[in-house]
């Protein structure tokens, strides 16, 4: 029996699944041993899970399909606002607080936006130009949220009733589930025909097209999945914040942090963003606690050092060490 399990793990195809399941089990029992309401660890992990979800979304569109999107914070913010708006306007008539319907709708709103803007942008813009286009869209959305005061409350934003808050428990487990969901989504997409198509597009668009890959369809698909993940993460974060405003959910950090996590861990790999998310969130949290004012400087230095000395990320570092031995 043990032999069988061991050989199953030894198989390279299964290591990712094994570690994900193992990790999930460990994280699932952590709250049993800690004081959930007071522990900083729980908050830290909750934040990490949210980052994993967004980072995996970006990983799919940028790491696998090679299209650098700089509009993820707009999707994240849209997800958060959708949750708040559905709740405040009593639209779905369901429970609202940690309601799956609301969360899925909050993921779908960015998908609709991603499809609407993705078709013109992805059909006409490549490489850097696509990145700038998405950056422009993100900025326009921020202006719209600031200006549509009647709906979004302008700069002050929206308040959802915080009296429903009982415990950190549902946040932790929903975060964990969403992170697992994001990892699974990206894992299964990249191992299907779609994944092959996406990688073909990343390596050489012209050649992919001439082999019969419908480029626009796959790019928009990846863009939409990325938007869905960002939106659903936004929804969860909205439940945590209770006060949604452009400053908190449309912040550029929601764009840069996930990108950094992907790059640090290794883009275009399934575990890279996860490792990156843990690493970066740890550094940010550590900095927040110990040198509150200067920690962003340290983070900036760190980004530069990592990109200078290990440009392929932590996952790539492993490969480099292994290849050195050969």
């Amino acid at each position: 029996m043990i032999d069988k399990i061991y050989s199953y793990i030894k198989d390279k195809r299964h290591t990712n699944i094994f570690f994900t399941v193992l990790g999930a089990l460990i994280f699932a029992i952590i709250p049993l041993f800690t004081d959930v309401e007071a522990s900083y660890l729980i908050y830290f992990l909750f934040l990490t899970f949210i980052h994993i979800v967004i980072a995996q979304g970006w990983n799919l569109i940028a790491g696998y399909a090679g299209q650098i999107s700089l509009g993820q914070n707009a999707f994240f913010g849209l997800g958060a606002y959708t949750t708040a708006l559905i709740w405040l306007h009593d639209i779905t008539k369901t429970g609202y607080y940690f309601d799956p319907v609301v969360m899925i709708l909050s993921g779908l709103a960015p998908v609709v936006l991603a499809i609407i803007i993705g078709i013109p942008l992805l059909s006409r813009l490549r490489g850097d130009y696509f990145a700038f286009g998405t950056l422009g869209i993100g900025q326009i959305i921020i202006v719209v949220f600031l200006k549509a005061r009647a709906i979004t409350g302008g700069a002050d934003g929206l308040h959802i009733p915080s009296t429903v808050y009982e415990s950190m428990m549902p946040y932790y487990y929903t975060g964990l589930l969403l992170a697992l969901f994001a990892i699974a989504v990206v894992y299964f997409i990249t191992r299907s025909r779609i994944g092959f198509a996406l990688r073909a597009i990343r390596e050489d668009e012209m050649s992919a097209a001439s082999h019969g890959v419908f480029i626009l369809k796959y790019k928009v698909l990846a863009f939409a999945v990325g938007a869905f993940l960002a939106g659903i993460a936004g929804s969860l974060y909205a439940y945590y914040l209770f006060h949604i405003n452009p400053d908190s959910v449309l912040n550029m950090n929601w764009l840069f942090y996930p990108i950094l996590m992907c790059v640090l861990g290794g883009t275009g790999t399934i575990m890279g963003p996860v490792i990156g998310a843990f690493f970066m969130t740890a550094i940010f949290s550590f900095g927040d606690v110990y040198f509150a004012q200067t920690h962003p400087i340290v983070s900036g230095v760190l980004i530069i050092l990592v990109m200078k000395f290990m440009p392929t990320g932590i996952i790539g570092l492993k490969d480099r060490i292994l290849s050195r031995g050969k």
Partner: protein
Amino acid sequence: MNLILTLRVLVNGVLFGTTYGIAAVGLSLIFGTMRIIFFAQGTFIIFFAYISYWLLTLLGIDPYLSLIIVIPASMLLGSALYYGIFKEAAANEDKNISLLLAIGLMYLMENFMLVVWTPDPRSVVTSYTTLVFRPFGIVIPFTRLTTLFIAVLTAAGVFIFLKKTLIGTAVRAASEDVVSTTLMGINPNWVNAVAFAIGIGLAGVAGVALATIYPFDPSYGFIFAIKALIALALGGIGNVYGALLGGILLGLIESLGSFYVGGGWADAISYGVFLLVLIFRPQGLFGGSIKKA
């Protein structure tokens, strides 16, 4: 009255747009040789605005006079940055590494400035800050006019450098084809360093110019970088001459937009124009049909 008001808006647009223009020329040069958008440009502009603020408040050096110090210092800093940080990444096929280095640098500088100079807006106030000319009822502040002169002089300087000198020719050649240029015996590192030096040098000029006309705070850098990027796209990415015109055009769009539609929306309008240009005229409004990137 209305005509004069419109004229005033137009003049102000052009005058402010020149600052975007200088920044965009810098971006364009760095993009030409390195093939990345140097996002930290805006943050460096604000950094040099603070330097000129310090030179004025601590040492009493006039902001325009401080250009004599700021320009060489910023050019040195530019080449040091290239050799210190970007050199290895520039040789790498994957341009994202350079892009992320730039983002990291931006993040570092912005937060450094937040710690050193606090998030409160600062402005450089001199005896001539309030000096205003009124030709035909159009109000033109002296500092903005000077900015226009500085911009035109700087741009002319860069153009002459690119056209007439051997190094400038090498930079232009590298923007067109890095591989061939390297085969011709031009050291790509050297060309990149020159482009970086001029790019950061232009950030120095833009920073001093900005300091004299506008209050600034550290977070303004990123916004400024995006504005310069829009100017660059309007003029055609990789087109040094178009970049200055693109900046002026962006200044006009913003000025007209905020006057006729309202403050915050002006940003949305300029991003909208940016998107339309990217989609329908990716070579820029002033360029021919040369395709680089």
